[in-house]
């Protein structure tokens, strides 16, 4: 098997021996005939297609449905590693919630001089409507996806906090289903922690955040922009698995001070809305008046305690990349201890010294837009051409405040299954975190995204990345 230089291979030692986490899997793998695996690999794709596990891509004209390529070699994480990660994630997520609450209330972290005021003053994600208001149960970010990367045996870094509407959890679940359907025998050999109760945990966590107005068992609904949204499959999947209604803005209306959904019997109140539309489309009366995705008047109902919105509007203030660079300070400020999971070193181009350093070292750095996502609008110095770097330099100089820079990490690799056998590819990991008033619940697993091109560091599905099943081993 080929080995990339200077990177941590999660399956094998430099000498070629198998690391303990993968021992059971590799033993099984070596017994499988190659053509059987190749055939199963093809079957998996057909099964995803038939089941309609797709995401939409907007090209010219019509939206096209694509599959996210699925790789059938699992990524394995030991129980001990996972325990360490979950402690770090819990710490980080409680700090995130405390931070958002503080920003919309007393702003003590700013008074204490730990983060600059400019961070939110001109931030588009900042919602004045949330000032002084506390959501039901005090929870701002109910569903969080923390993106992690690894560079060595114990070296995990947080790459990004997705505190608004993280997606991908349906792939975590479907990847596992696919693996169990293809290789049932593996799951009797390897003790893998189950992820399948995520929807039940999500429903429970959301219900625990019901507003005062809820009577009896809270009614939960998932708000989707509709079938043309890239993550529609996931919205439908989660609603289905939770037994919740999947609603669009046109199904909802404010009646008698509650948000109600139009059923065949008339309007019925919704207590908790797991929304998968962005803040600015949530309420045309408060935000974008042209939007038809949201519900006119929902913000008034929200502020009067008539509904829980998950994640809370204005949560995005905590997850842009400028805030990210302050996360170590933020974690320490609210939890009183050093972050268990470090950030990737980050230069804020808004600061003159940092900008100077970044400009001098563009060819070695990854430069990202502060508000960008999906791997767009970024420069990967080491793989960029001279021309691309020159063009990016101009953009950067014009609006330095829009950018941050990070070193190019030697991301760990996991093997993927290719026509020529196993080959190492870079991966990241997005565990999914549920927050309710008294609990932070992390499902043992997550979405491992994998760059399918040799040497590529871009794992985003919109940029041709794939996914693989993530196994957290039981003790």
């Amino acid at each position, binding site marked *: 098997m080929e080995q990339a230089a200077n990177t941590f291979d999660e399956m094998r030692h430099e000498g070629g021996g198998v690391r303990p986490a993968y021992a059971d899997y590799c033993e099984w793998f070596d017994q499988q005939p190659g053509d059987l695996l190749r055939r199963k690999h093809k079957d998996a794709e057909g099964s995803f*297609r*038939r089941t*309609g596990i797709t995401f939409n891509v907007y090209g010219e004209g019509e939206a096209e449905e694509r599959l996210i390529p699925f790789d059938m070699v699992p990524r394995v994480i030991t129980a001990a590693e996972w325990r360490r990660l979950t402690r770090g994630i819990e710490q980080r997520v409680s700090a995130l919630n405390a931070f958002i609450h503080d920003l919309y209330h007393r702003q003590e972290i700013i008074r204490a001089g730990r983060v600059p005021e400019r961070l939110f003053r001109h931030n588009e994600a900042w919602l004045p409507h949330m000032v002084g208001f506390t959501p039901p149960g005090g929870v701002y970010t109910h569903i969080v996806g923390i993106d992690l990367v690894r560079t060595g045996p114990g070296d995990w870094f947080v790459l990004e906090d997705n505190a608004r509407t993280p997606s991908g959890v349906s792939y975590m679940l479907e990847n596992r289903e696919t693996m169990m359907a293809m290789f049932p025998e593996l799951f009797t050999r390897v003790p893998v922690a189950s992820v399948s109760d995520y929807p039940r945990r999500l429903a429970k966590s959301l219900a625990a955040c019901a507003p005062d107005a809820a009577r009896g068992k809270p009614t939960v609904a998932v708000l989707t922009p509709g*079938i043309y949204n890239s993550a529609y499959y996931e919205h*439908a*999947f989660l609603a289905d698995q939770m037994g*919740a209604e*999947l609603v669009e803005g046109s199904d909802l209306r404010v009646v008698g001070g509650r948000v109600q959904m*139009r059923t*065949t019997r008339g309007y019925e109140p919704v207590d908790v809305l797991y929304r998968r539309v962005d803040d600015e489309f949530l309420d045309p009366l408060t935000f974008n008046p042209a939007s038809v995705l949201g519900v006119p008047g929902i913000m008034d109902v929200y502020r009067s305690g008539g509904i829980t919105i998950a994640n809370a509007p204005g949560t995005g203030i905590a997850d842009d990349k400028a805030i990210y660079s302050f996360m170590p300070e933020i974690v320490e400020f609210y939890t009183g201890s050093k972050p268990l999971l470090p950030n990737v070193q980050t230069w804020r181009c808004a600061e003159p010294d940092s900008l100077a350093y970044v400009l001098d070292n563009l060819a070695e750095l990854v430069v990202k837009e502060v508000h960008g996502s999906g791997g767009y609008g970024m420069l990967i110095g080491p793989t960029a051409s001279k021309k691309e770097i020159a063009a990016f330099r101009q953009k950067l100089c014009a609006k330095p405040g829009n950018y941050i820079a990070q070193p190019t990490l030697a991301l760990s690799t996991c093997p993927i299954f290719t026509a020529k056998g196993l080959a190492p590819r870079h991966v990241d990991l997005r565990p999914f975190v549920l927050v309710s008033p008294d609990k932070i619940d992390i499902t043992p697993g997550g979405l491992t995204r994998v760059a399918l091109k040799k040497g590529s560091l871009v794992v985003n599905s919109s940029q041709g990345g794939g996914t693989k099943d993530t196994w957290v081993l039981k003790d």
Partner: protein
Amino acid sequence: MLGRTANGLFWMFRYLERAENTARLLEAGFRMALTRDLQTAEAEWRSLVHTLGLKEVYERHHDSYIGHEVWNFILRDRENPNSVARMMDAMRANARVTRTAITTELWTAINTSWMEITALLKRPVSQGQVGEVVETIRRAGTLTHGAMEGTLLRFEGYHFARVGTFVERADNVARIIDMKYYLLLPSLRYVGSTMDTGQWEQVLRSVSGDRAYHWLNAGRIEARGIVEFLVLDRRFPRSLAYCHGELDEELACLAAIHGHEAHCHKLMHEAATILDHMTVDGIFEIGLHEFLTRFVDRNAAIAEAIAQDYRFLV
């Protein structure tokens, strides 16, 4: 259940039924055209396009009624808003909208049918492929209904799906009978001729009723018997009486679930009473075309009332 979900189930099955009936009609037209010389075949193709209500849009893009142009127009033309390809798209889009209300088996039946038919209709359909395409579309109907019957909870969603099926089937079959009477026959003097019986034979085939009819009537092909069979025979699952019988039952289930009857039930009772008391003599007295027109209108009014009563749309 959300009104929009009910609407989605209703339309998903309407589109499925419409695609299937379009394919059945096309098959009948194709067979008729095969038994004609070139010139009469053109008349057969024309009447088929008329029956499908596509005359205007067809003639905007075509100067003549040539077989392969007609079937490709009906099956896959992007200019044709009612092509089978577009109906399959609409059916699947509705299935995606109602994904949380249908079972995985039902979804998979729809999605795989859609994949198969979309692949078949990617390129122009040759004469040799028409049969395969039609069969695949009919099989999609069978597969989907089977998946639904075998797996779907008998909740209101099931009844909305069935309501959609029978509203659409009633409409389509009425139009098929009407086409025979008004478009296929150039003049009344053909009544009873071999051309007449040959066309009735194809009409029966297009609703898969040929064998049943022959079994019941010992091979006697004549308008009276066929009209009685297609309109009034409750044993035949594509007759108008059967469709409205089922529709009536499905609406009764919805009323029971909701605890009350609504406007659509009143219209349904009226329509059912009229059909219950109708005889084949009565139909010819009113005039077959007149009778069918009123039936189609009543059927459409019921569908509209259902959408209103169950809050399909805002």
